[in-house]
């Protein structure tokens, strides 16, 4: 048994942590709500530098052109990103977009993965819909073959990184009923495709998203990723990887939140002494630190089972995200409360970090949905 990072991952963590520390100002600028009005919602300059540093490559396996891609590579990277509250779209462009093209694409399509790793291509997965909530198989968008062409019709909801994306990966139903796992295909759609329109908006926790309308959008059938109607397993796999990434990112944010709070309790003076000298607050801080270690272990469980057999993998990841959902909410709320008003201001670093923690629960399945999945998998 050994819970240390390998030398390579330790080096990755060190260099990434150093880079993020040295670029705090630029990273922070993208987190301001006003700044989210910029076109991409993040700093393309930082993105390029992180790609140079090998951060994107660490998220892909060697056979896909990277040098990592395992569960602990993901958690090493995302924990660091979470510590600084980075809003750059690593989940969307790399884990989801790049991951799906690597999994399903033909050799032509797979060339895009190289561009992702090089930092020169942005992607967005257009999968969720108004009525899908967190259910991956609820796809109402349709793909209809007309001769050698495919016609897409539907609306995709809260597509993160849509406005920055060079290509969309759009899920659509070619067969079966809404809710069937069978019959869902994925298509590569260039951003300038006729029939595609966006309504973009900033996100409360940073970054941007859009509602994506597909109105008679025509594609050559070569735009399909993988076999017709058979995209569901790859989608599930990519989103599972994204869930591990998100869990680690939230863990990093929880570390940052508790660090800031500990520091504040030691320095803030009221009633003539540091507020951290009050036992009522000490015990609450202690509870948060206990939950933080629970969260760390949950992330290790999830990452360690990312390549396990499907039943174990699903169970562990649902467990980790349920725990992080509960512990994360507690940490975010308590850290704000222990600070008082100052943590309510956009100016103070904790505000953004707390939003990252809580809003992560709204992607790919919230705390309750993870509990349901855990119960389903336990019964299976």
């Amino acid at each position, binding site marked *: 048994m050994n819970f240390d990072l390998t030398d390579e991952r330790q080096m990755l963590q060190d260099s990434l942590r150093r880079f993020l520390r040295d670029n705090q100002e630029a990273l922070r600028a993208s987190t301001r709500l006003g700044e989210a009005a910029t076109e991409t919602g993040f700093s393309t300059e930082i993105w390029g530098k992180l790609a140079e540093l090998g951060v994107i490559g660490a998220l892909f396996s060697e056979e896909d052109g990277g040098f990592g891609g395992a569960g602990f590579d993901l958690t090493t990277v995302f924990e660091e990103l979470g510590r600084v509250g980075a809003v750059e779209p690593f989940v969307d462009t790399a884990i989801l977009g790049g991951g799906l093209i690597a999994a399903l694409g033909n050799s032509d399509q797979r060339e895009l993965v190289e561009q992702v790793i090089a930092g020169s291509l942005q992607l967005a997965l257009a999968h*969720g819909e*108004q009525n899908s909530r967190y259910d991956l198989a609820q796809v109402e968008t349709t793909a209809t073959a007309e001769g050698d062409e495919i016609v897409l019709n539907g609306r995709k909801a809260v597509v993160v990184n849509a406005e920055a994306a060079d290509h969309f990966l759009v899920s659509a139903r070619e067969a079966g009923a*809404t809710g069937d796992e069978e019959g869902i295909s994925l298509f590569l759609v260039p951003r300038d495709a006729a029939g595609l329109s966006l309504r973009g908006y900033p996100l409360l926790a940073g970054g941007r998203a859009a509602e994506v309308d597909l109105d008679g959008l025509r594609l050559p059938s070569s735009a399909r990723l993988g076999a017709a109607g058979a995209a569901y397993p790859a989608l599930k796999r990519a989103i599972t990887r994204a869930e591990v990434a998100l869990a680690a990112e939230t863990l990093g944010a929880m570390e940052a939140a508790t660090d800031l709070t500990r520091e504040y309790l030691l320095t803030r003076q009221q009633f003539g002494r540091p507020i951290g000298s009050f036992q009522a607050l000490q015990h609450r801080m202690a509870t948060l630190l206990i939950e933080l270690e629970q969260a760390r272990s949950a992330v290790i469980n999830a990452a360690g089972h990312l390549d396990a057999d499907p039943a174990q993998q699903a169970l562990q990841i649902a467990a980790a995200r349920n725990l992080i959902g509960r512990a994360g909410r507690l940490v975010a709320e308590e850290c704000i409360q222990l600070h*008082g008003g100052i943590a309510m201001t956009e100016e103070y670093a904790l505000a953004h970090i707390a939003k990252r923690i809580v809003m992560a629960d709204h992607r790919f399945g919230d705390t309750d949905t993870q509990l349901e999945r855990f119960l389903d998998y336990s019964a299976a």
Partner: protein
Amino acid sequence: MDLNYSVEEQAFRAEVQQFLAEKLPAEMSEAIRVGRELGKDGHDQWHAILNAQGWLAPNWPKEFGGCEWNAVQRHIFEEECCRAHAPRIVPFGLSMLAPVLQKFGSKEQQDHYLPRILSGQDWWCQGYSEPGAGSDLASLKTRAVREADHYVVNGQKTWTTLGQYANWIFCLVRTDPEAKQQSGISFLLIDMATPGIEVRPITLLDGTHEVNEVWFTDVKVPVENLVGEENMGWTYAKYLLTHERTNIAGVGFSRAGLDAVKRMARSQMHRGRPLIDNPHFAARMARAEIDLMAMSTTNLRIISRAAAGQAPGVESSMLKVKGTEIRQEINDLARRAAGAYAMPFASEALEGGNEPEIGPEGSAAVAAQYFNNRKLSIFGGSNEIQKNIIAKVKLGGGA
């Protein structure tokens, strides 16, 4: 023991309902229901409507132009206003400063300021907290030095709610730096147009601008703007805080919030069925509702005693803690119900733009409100301070 309202109280409720049905503008009610900001004009408009009805000052004695309603009537009024999605009445002049002036102010101050509060001519804000004086309010440092017929004020106040709209501020200032903390404080009324005052906005974590910093540099305040006696300000401040804690339970807000959650849970689909049918979500809603039902009766118990002339004790601290916990839990439910549509930062929809909401009705505000209402357990005496009060009364010893 009788859980029913009296015939007179029921008639009063009907009267309030009828007034709201007739006089509350539909677009204003709609804005409040979906969580849009009202702005100064909206507040002023509702203020004027209530004033025309003579219902602007439920807690004021009749001699000053108030309703002199008892605690039960005030509760019924607040409950019906929440149910109808009426705007909150900005409390700083009406329910915080006015009781202090009525009890401790001079005849001249009462005659001058109280009518201007009713007419809406003056918008008051509160200068209490400072960067170094939050829960430990008595450690405040803003200094007022007497020079002939005026005070010279220097210092900084913070968390000044809606100070950007205010033309007057009531302030706690230190007039005797030698005295023990609580005894060197005075209560001053300051015209915001006086040279040397600067209001700086604070942007909150949900992007809103509702609080401010107020800076004072050599601000000259006439001595007649002192309320009561010099160095007695802490007594007045404590009196004011007891008024700040009326309607602290927020039962009406919680009811309206829970209704909104239910509406959204009916419209949102989860695994092909309405979310409201989901046992996990339904259980969360049920727990909040069960807590609210009990808390609402605790609230009525205290109100009923207050109407009979008994001053509330630690119960108001208990209500503040439980009431804010329940409201925050309901905010949490609302963001959960919205699913991925809780993620957008929909500033346009919240500020009253013409764009339709991005997600389901009411979803634009849920996450912002969840974060914004973290303030409920921080302001008005944080929940930790309330627990200190409860513990001190029940266990004795220090806070």
